[in-house]
């Protein structure tokens, strides 16, 4: 009994058979539902959804490393920070307000940082990979935190409202976030989600899964293990930076708190909550986390305790997350009928 659960947890079944694009359908359902949400939901709910889009994009990247390659990064919030600070520096210091330019810069900078960091990190796996990424993340945090002149220190840096496709929008911040920016971020999630879907289904994505299952065997079969891992690291960093840029705009601020290691822990929490073994699981986890976080925080000031307890119970009883539970329910239903 115990052995069975352990096997399930270790070798999380990431890819369903190639012929069935279940994950893509699930993502499409989420995107369509989110597109229709402004018709029924309150403004408050909509302002919650914008950070969710940011997290969802970052999580898609995070899970390329965690779920597909088997590398647990405990410093992934670093790349959220890269995106957020790129947005802040460009919009408030350099006066570049085009969000497309901001995104391109965030992508370029995150790739530039991820290359050397990833090169050093992917030589290790398991707990050492996690610790090294944590160290790099905290290194970045301490730079942001201590060098007031460059980064504003613990005050953070203000983010000026960006132009979307060169257009400014009328109205206040909330109108911007729940209007044009909502759809813009959702569009990014849809596009980047589709790209990620193609990545995990490509020979490259299959290489990653082969590395996760057995790196030695994969390398005997001609997979360039380190190089492939590095590529996954860089791609996941880019997704993190794009997510961070969206987060920064929705908060209106880039601050070091976003890079602290507990934020990286939250990303892992979200991925496991949704189910890191499936393509769309982390996105579901991001949504569940944002909603859960909001409702628990509204209910009690001791929300950390509740979230921590949920995490403990989740790890013990449902290590495959929401997507895993859903999969089991569907399987039982099929068997029964």
């Amino acid at each position: 009994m115990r052995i069975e659960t352990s096997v399930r947890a270790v070798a999380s079944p990431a890819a369903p058979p190639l012929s069935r694009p279940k994950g893509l359908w699930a993502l499409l359902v989420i995107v369509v539902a989110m597109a229709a949400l402004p018709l029924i939901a309150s403004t408050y709910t909509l302002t919650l959804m914008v950070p969710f889009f940011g997290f969802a994009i970052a999580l898609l990247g995070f899970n390329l490393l965690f779920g597909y390659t088997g590398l647990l990064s405990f410093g992934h919030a670093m790349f959220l920070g890269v995106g957020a600070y790129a947005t802040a520096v460009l919009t408030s210091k350099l006066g570049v307000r085009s969000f497309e330019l901001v995104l391109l810069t965030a992508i370029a900078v995150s790739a530039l940082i991820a290359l050397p960091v990833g090169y050093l990190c992917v030589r290790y796996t398991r707990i050492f990979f996690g610790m090294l990424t944590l160290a790099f993340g905290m290194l970045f945090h301490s730079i942001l935190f201590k060098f007031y002149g460059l980064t504003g220190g613990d005050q953070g840096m203000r983010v000026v409202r960006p132009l979307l496709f060169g257009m400014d929008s009328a109205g206040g911040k909330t109108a911007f976030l729940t209007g044009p920016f909502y759809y813009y971020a959702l569009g990014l999630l849809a596009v980047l989600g589709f790209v990620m879907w193609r990545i995990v289904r490509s020979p490259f994505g299959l290489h990653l899964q082969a590395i996760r299952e057995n790196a030695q065997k994969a390398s005997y079969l001609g997979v360039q293990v380190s190089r492939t891992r590095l590529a996954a690291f860089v791609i996941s960093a880019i997704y993190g930076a794009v997510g961070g840029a969206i987060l920064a705009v929705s908060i209106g601020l880039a601050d070091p708190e976003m890079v602290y290691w507990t934020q990286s822990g939250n990303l892992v929490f979200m991925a496991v909550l949704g189910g890191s073994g499936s393509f769309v699981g982390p996105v579901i986890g991001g949504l569940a986390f944002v909603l859960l976080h909001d409702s628990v925080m509204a209910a009690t000031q001791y929300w950390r305790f509740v979230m921590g307890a949920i995490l403990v119970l989740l790890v013990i009883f449902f290590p495959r997350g929401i997507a895993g539970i859903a999969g089991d329910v569907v399987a039982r239903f099929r068997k029964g009928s």
Partner: protein
Amino acid sequence: MTVFLDVLLGGVFHAAILFLVAAGLQLVFGVQKIVNLACGSFYALGAYFGITAVGFAAQLGLPSILVLPVLILAGLAIGLVGLPVERVLRTIYNRDESYQLLITFGFLLMFQDVFRFFWGATPRTLDNAYLVYGTAEFLGVQVPTYNLLVIAASIAIALGLGLFLQRTRMGRIIRATAENRNMTEAMGVDSNRIFAAVFTVGCMLGTVGGALVVPASASSLDMAVELVVEAFAVVVIGGLGSMRGALAGALIVGLIRAAAIMVLPEAEILSIYVVVIAVLILRPAGLFGRAVA
């Protein structure tokens, strides 16, 4: 010269505390193979409970000279909280490391609010209780005697732990379990009991560390998450699972931090991570660790 001695004494004091927490982390990693993020919470728990215990002792009318033994006893007592925590962790010993790391992260979050609930959000201090021991002069530098006592206590605990693990029957069984759990079980060792005992001792090292630090600095809600990364730095530098590594790592981190505060305050935290990354790149197993795959 005095600056150098200041750095040395401040660094060694910090290292003495760090060593206790890191030794707990190492012990648990060595035997249970779990990297315990909640070690920071145990440290903070010891600090908060230490303040309460000293307050209670003062109400009982105990002389304030007893503050050190009261703190150590308080740390040992509250360290028993490790027993129920281990009972929960027991369910996931066979799982992947990422889940083990994550469950201890859950405990860390829960403990944050336990502190907030019992002790509130404002930092708590012991109003310079350590001055009761006066200050000593050490080669022309003034140091609180309390700091020297803590360093001595930490060395004593390190020696005691080393003797216990190397020389006693129980210590041998613990080391054997760390080496090969199935084999020791086959030889009749109840490894569940060993695990519970080891985790509780690991937890106690953290709580005693926290209790000892509290006369010299405030206890706050941030101390748990901040200490985790420092303790991580110590074990990475020293090598996961190695006690000698914890000692070396704690000294390195403590001294670097003390020196950086003196020379370049901006680089206080930065310098630690630079060393961590350098060690991981040059010697991934740490200074005293075993080679890893």
